């Protein structure tokens, strides 16, 4: 009965206090709930995208001399492969031949059944189709007749009806059942697709060791949303089929491989979540605890009164428990509801994480129930002002400094060893995560928080507040000195919120910048055009093209090592500084420009061949001719180049001594690259290879990095703004609310509104300056550490940190507005007639 009366009274007369406490708990709940929803949605998206990206789920290959008696699951089509000696075409009296190739026999509805496997570029989709690269090699277009050189049989003419692109050629021509590392380096350049009947007519008579048969299968896609669970399900089904086939066939599990990569992406997302999201969850919980804790003095007074009137300790605990449940449940429901709404709006998932509810109830228990359990006597209702006279043990022993030193040492050790938290080995989808590296940022977070607390307590207040308070400096200083704890709490949380916002935004911006650089390196430019006879002037006249930079490419031997050789115009080529070693990009390019036969080589080549600057390097072309160059510098990255070793020379010198195909790197005038690429395709025809950076970025990015990381950062950057605003503004308002009596009494003693204002603005300025200065400093340090520790995520490593000035501008403005609003609200409240305030308290 007492509980009901008590709750009714609280609801009727302390609605605002209860609502503030519930809002605080909702704040702690909403971020982890939203992050949980993000992770679930991201994982489900990764699974869906993996399924969508795979044109053929399984390639079940019949073993030589065996017949498959087991029916294929789902939808399947039989595909025949024939290895042939090559193709030939005649054009204007000239005969063009290719090396060995493959001819596939496909059922008539193959393209409709597996639409992702091929894309028609020209002609008709029925009849013999030539792969784009093959068409370029043979200069063949739809309607052309080519010759197929069959092993053991006479050559056969085939009239091409269309040209296609094979987007998934790697998996299409995989060696089914090969051990890891046993797959072909690249798919065949020369490919012809024939209707099933034509294929049998041409190749039924060739040697059996030149032929293989596969069943291309699409299985049911009702899979668990988690990529790890989906991977387990799919690979299990594949092994089951292999077991039933009893050695007559092997399964090439394309879907399993894609899900395996997605599984690694999911692990990667969890690492990023821990690194970038966990501090925000802790900050939110601390902020919620402080907001909810604001009602503690009121509760302590009430409990003391109840105790004085004979209430037992048990009764007090039951009342506190009832208030805890009321506030906790309301806060949790509000938090989960808000997270569900935000999740649906941001990434279409309301699947919030329920462990966030546990966190909310924990915060309610710690901030509402725990103080009540401690306050068992009337004397406990007293409100001490100065706090403990003796400083905390951690302050005396310098724990903050030890933590920061520990963080620096761990960072130094890990950096010196080239340590990376996330390793992405070439060609392997798995990530290697060492959780020891979490220690560096964790110690930095904790140490920075405690350091801000220490500095807020030790700053010379009288000197600091004198500009704002004038003759009242010593009084204001004394007031702030004896209220250091709430002041330090507000300043520390505000600084940590600023630190979180800065580090997250800098990391995110650097990440995006490097993803773009990676795409540019892979694609070469906004748009890249190769295998074309068009001139630079023709390309430059296409709408949307701002500049067309020619780039020559061919292969050359350094000793016995075959490397890519690029010819550039050093005066017009632009490179990032991180692409070169031993100077800036401009310096290295100038060195290249100074000598016609200058050559830039990779570090690996310098080491392998013991080169010194100025040494002659004799390159051997594939036709056996030898051309002398001189080693002029080291280049580490180059657009479109492989990562290990390649060469860069002057285009003019290369054209004179080793003529090569010209590729054009197109810079757009702001028109989206995919539009310019489409325009170029329309003008240059299907046999010209045209790629754009947007498409490349989607191809090279994992399912997570290409799409979903933006959801994570959107949540975190938005929440960082909210945290910064609340930490700076709300905590000040709560602190001021506790000091209403002080201001009212000062008003009774004759303090003018201006003088009362100086009390308030001094505190606002102190919190603002500490939060901005220390938050920015620690945020910068944390950004450097995050980028260094997560350097495996960046490819290539960044020149430096990318600073998102617009976001930081918004952060600064929002923080300042929150501070000013808190100050202005308090000044207005302090101007109320003091008697009214004293009567209300």
């Amino acid at each position, binding site marked *: 009965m007492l509980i009901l009366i008590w709750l009714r009274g609280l609801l009727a007369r302390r609605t605002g206090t209860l609502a503030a406490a519930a809002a605080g708990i909702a704040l702690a709940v909403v971020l982890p709930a939203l992050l949980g929803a993000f992770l679930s949605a991201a994982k489900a998206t990764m699974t869906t995208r993996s399924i969508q990206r795979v044109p053929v789920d399984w390639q079940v290959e019949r073993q030589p001399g065996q017949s498959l008696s087991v029916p294929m699951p789902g939808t399947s089509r039989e595909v025949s492969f024939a290895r042939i000696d090559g193709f030939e075409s005649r054009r204007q009296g000239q005969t063009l031949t290719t090396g060995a190739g493959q001819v596939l026999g496909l059922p008539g509805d193959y393209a409709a059944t597996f639409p992702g496997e091929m894309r028609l570029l020209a002609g008709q989709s029925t009849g013999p189709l030539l792969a784009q690269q093959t068409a370029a090699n043979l200069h063949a277009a739809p309607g052309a007749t080519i010759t197929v050189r069959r092993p053991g049989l006479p050559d056969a003419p085939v009239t091409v009806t269309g040209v296609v692109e094979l987007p998934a050629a790697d998996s299409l021509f995989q060696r089914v059942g090969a051990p890891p590392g046993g797959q072909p380096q690249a798919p065949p350049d020369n490919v012809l697709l024939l209707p099933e009947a034509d294929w049998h007519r041409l190749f039924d008579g060739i040697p059996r060791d030149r032929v293989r048969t596969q069943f291309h299968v699409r299985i049911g896609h009702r899979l668990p949303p988690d990529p790890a669970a989906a991977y387990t399900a799919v690979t299990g089904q594949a092994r089951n089929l292999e077991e039933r086939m009893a050695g007559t066939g092997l399964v090439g599990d394309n879907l399993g491989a894609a899900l395996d990569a997605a599984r690694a992406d999911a692990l990667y997302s969890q690492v990023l979540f821990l690194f970038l999201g966990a501090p925000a969850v802790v900050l939110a919980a601390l902020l919620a605890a402080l907001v909810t804790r604001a009602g503690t003095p009121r509760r302590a007074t009430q409990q003391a009164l109840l105790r004085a009137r004979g209430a037992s300790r048990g009764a007090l605990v039951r009342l506190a428990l009832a208030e805890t449940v009321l506030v906790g449940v309301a806060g949790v429901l509000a938090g989960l509801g808000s997270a569900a709404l935000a999740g649906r709006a941001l990434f279409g998932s309301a699947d919030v994480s329920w462990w966030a509810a546990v966190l909310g109830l924990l915060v309610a228990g710690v901030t509402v129930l725990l103080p009540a359990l401690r306050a068992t006597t009337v004397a406990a209702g*007293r*409100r*001490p*002002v*100065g706090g403990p006279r003796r400083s905390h043990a951690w302050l005396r022993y310098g724990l903050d400094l030890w933590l920061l030193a520990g963080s620096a040492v761990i960072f130094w050790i890990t950096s010196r060893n080239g340590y990376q938290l996330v390793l992405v080995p070439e060609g392997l989808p798995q990530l290697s995560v060492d959780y020891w590296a979490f220690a560096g940022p964790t110690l930095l977070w904790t140490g920075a928080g405690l350091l801000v607390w220490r500095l807020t307590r030790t700053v010379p207040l009288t000197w600091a507040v004198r500009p704002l308070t004038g*003759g*009242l*400096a*010593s*009084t204001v200083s*004394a*007031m702030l000195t*004896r*209220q250091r704890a709430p002041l330090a709490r507000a300043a520390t949380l505000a600084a940590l919120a600023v630190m979180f916002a800065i580090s997250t935004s800098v990391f995110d911006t650097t990440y995006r910048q490097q993803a773009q650089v990676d795409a540019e390196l892979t694609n070469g430019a906004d748009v890249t055009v190769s295998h074309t006879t068009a001139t630079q002037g023709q390309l430059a006249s296409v709408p949307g093209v701002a500049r067309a930079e020619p780039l020559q490419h061919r292969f050359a031997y350094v000793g016995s090592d075959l490397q890519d050789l690029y010819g550039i115009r050093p005066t017009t080529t632009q490179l990032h500084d991180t692409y070169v070693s031993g100077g800036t990009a401009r310096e290295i390019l100038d060195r290249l420009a100074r000598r016609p036969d200058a050559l830039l080589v990779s570090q690996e080549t310098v080491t392998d061949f013991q080169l010194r600057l100025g040494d002659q390097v004799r390159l051997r072309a594939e036709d056996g001719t030898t051309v002398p160059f001189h080693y002029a510098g080291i280049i580490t990255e180059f657009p479109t180049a492989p990562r290990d070793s390649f060469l860069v020379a002057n285009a003019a010198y290369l054209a004179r001594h080793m003529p090569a195909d010209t590729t054009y790197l197109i810079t757009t005038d702001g028109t989206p690259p995919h539009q310019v690429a489409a325009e170029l395709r329309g003008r240059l025809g299907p046999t010209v290879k045209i790629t754009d950076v947007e498409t490349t970025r989607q191809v090279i990015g994992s399912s997570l990095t290409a799409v979903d990381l933006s959801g994570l950062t959107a949540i975190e950057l938005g929440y960082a703004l909210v945290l910064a605003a609340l930490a700076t503004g709300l905590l000040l308002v709560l602190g001021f609310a506790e*000091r209403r*009596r*002080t201001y009212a*009494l*000062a*008003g*009774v*003693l*004759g*303090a*003018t509104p201006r*003088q009362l204002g100086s009390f308030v603005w001094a505190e606002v300025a102190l919190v603002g300056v500490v939060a901005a200065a220390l938050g920015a400093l620690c945020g910068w340090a944390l950004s450097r550490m995050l980028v260094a520790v997560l350097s495996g995520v960046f490819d290539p490593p960044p020149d430096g940190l990318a600073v998102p000035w617009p976001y930081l501008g918004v952060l600064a403005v929002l923080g300042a507005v929150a501070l000013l609003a808190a100050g202005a609200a308090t000044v207005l409240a302090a101007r109320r*007639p*003091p*008697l009214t305030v004293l009567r209300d308290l």
Partner: protein
Amino acid sequence: MTPLVTCQELARAYGKGKNALVAVHSVTCELRPGQHVAITGTSGSGKTTLLHLLAGLDRPTAGRIAWPAFGDRPRGRVGVVFQGPSLLPPLDVAENVALPLLIAGAGEAEAKEQALLALAAIGLDDLAGSLPEELSGGQAQRVAVARVLAAEPRLIIADEPTAQLDSDSARRVVDLLTRVASRLDAALVVATHDPLVARRLPETWTMNDGALTC
């Protein structure tokens, strides 16, 4: 002699219309330097409201009040001793006593010296560094009086300053107030339930249902 405060048909009501509670009505009075007055009356008779009006801490809803000696703004120039604790919790005793002087524009050194003198005058200089929460009720009230003494006001208003004190402490506080007021030639108004306190002042006014009988 110029009166410190003059009131004519002064009234103060809380709320409006039928539900309005009239705390003070039709009060006409005047206070001059050196005048020491006790205001008695039952609880709810309007004593505190009248004192707040006299101190300029509240505004009348009808009638007129003026402080010919202080101009338009009496707040800060009237020494007020409240019924309950009125010391600023985060300031120590000396800082509390010095605060009205600092607010009035005195220099830090001067304010501190005057505060310590005022504390010494009432025998509390050994508590100068204590926080209000460390004082007893009597000590806190005496510090509040010291705060008035330090500011040297010409009008001192004390609202039941002895209500929470034992008789010995009450006597010491009232003696202190009258001594201070006499030394400053200030007018002293003390609202009290206690007839013993009222008898220690030469003049007694009575409040009854918001009306004042001088």
